[in-house]
């Protein structure tokens, strides 16, 4: 039953990359939207909002991503929805990314000197204008490097969704390996593909960090 690892297997694995990329993109975009709200709530004047968002972050940073995947996966069935690995994975990773990006961006917002908010307030700018035109543009510069760094983590994190049966890159490797039993070649190829995706991003993050340091010493 074991067959030779061949070109069609390579093609199968490479084609699965799109699912890894799609899932990463959904989680990153969803997480960016969620994370912005979490970060604003965390740094807001309302105690209730700060507490709720802090609890949200604590839960999603304090539990394994795999457990979150399981809970959303089985949660869907409890709600009598059909089993759908992509949906479960997308929801779980979006919450996961919201918590991490929310925490990264909270730190970036708080790194903007309070005098900036005070000057904007004294000029009678509204909360929205203060955030949009004064605080967030400065926080964004501080945030880019760690955000790209988190994106790399997120892409690698999508490999866990193979366990709930979502056929992305890692799961495609498992399927091919079950048929060919050539684990070193198969998983070597899978790892190499992750590396090709993530390495340039890591480099980019490091370059941004260097540029940030320059901007601040100017």
């Amino acid at each position, binding site marked *: 039953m074991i067959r030779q690892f061949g070109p069609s297997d390579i093609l199968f694995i490479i084609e699965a990359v799109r699912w890894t990329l799609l899932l990463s993109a959904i989680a990153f975009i969803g997480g960016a939207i969620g994370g912005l709200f979490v970060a604003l709530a965390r740094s807001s004047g309302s105690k209730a909002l700060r507490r709720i968002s802090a609890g949200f972050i604590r839960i999603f940073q304090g539990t394994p991503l795999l457990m979150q995947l399981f809970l959303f996966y089985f949660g869907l069935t409890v709600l009598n929805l059909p089993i759908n690995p992509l949906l479960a994975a997308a929801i779980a990773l979006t919450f996961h990314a919201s918590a991490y990006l929310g925490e990264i961006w909270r730190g970036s917002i708080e790194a903007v*000197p309070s*005098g*900036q908010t*005070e*000057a*904007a*307030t*004294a*000029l*009678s*700018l*509204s909360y929205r*204008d203060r955030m949009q*035109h*004064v605080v967030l*543009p*400065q926080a964004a*510069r501080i945030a880019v490097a760690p955000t790209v760094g988190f994106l790399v983590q997120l892409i690698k994190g999508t490999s866990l969704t193979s366990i709930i049966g979502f056929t992305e890159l890692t799961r495609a490797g498992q399927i091919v390996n079950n048929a060919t039993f050539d684990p070193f070649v198969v998983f070597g190829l899978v790892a190499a593909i992750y590396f090709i995706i993530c390495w340039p991003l890591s480099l980019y993050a490091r370059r941004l960090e260097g540029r940030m340091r320059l901007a601040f010493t*100017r």
Partner: protein
Amino acid sequence: MTQAQQPAVEMRGVTKFFGAFQALKSIDLTVEQGERIVVCGPSGSGKSTLIRTLNQLEEIQDGKITVDGIELTAGGENVAKVRRDVGMVFQQFNLFPHLTVLQNCTLAPLKTGRADKATAEATARKYLERVKIPEQADKFPAQLSGGQQQRVAIARALCMEPRIMLFDEPTSALDPEMVKEVLDTMIDLAREGMTMLCVTHEMDFARAVADRVIFMEQGAIIEEGPPAEFFGNPKSERLRNFLGQIS
């Protein structure tokens, strides 16, 4: 009733706590239209806190503040109204580093709906001219000297055409050779009749432009008077000590 007839600022029993610490102890203060007030006192006496209550950068726990007839402490819409009326200049300039000088000056007028882009830019250039740095309009704050940055900060506040200007130690963060250019700008402003409250230890400035000097200690106004009397004939022991230390 026209605005010119009512006091620019009225503070009654203004009390401010930071946690358990009382930073302002039932302050009463009236500032008339066009009056120039200098506030001095030792570090930690509550000078910054006092002027920061006037645009509600600090909320107060008790008392009443009225600015140009608008009751700030009534809250709601009044806070924004008062802030449009009151400009502020900080010790650390607090210019927006990601915006050019011109953008620093036009942001608030544009976003608060005061002016369209052309008008806001014309106003900004007018006030940059007034503070004598029209040629720096397209630079970023980091490219300017400290004195120039503080003058931009003054121009930025003036672009909202406030009736009252607050200054919180505007020259304390400056190298000595840049103090004069900022003080001269403030003196010009005073000559034009702007109502001003300035926290500063520049006593020459106080003598030149102040109508009244206020001495604060431990969250209270200890003594106040016209500069000649304030400096020439201080009544309280504490003010005499203070004046002895700073001169």
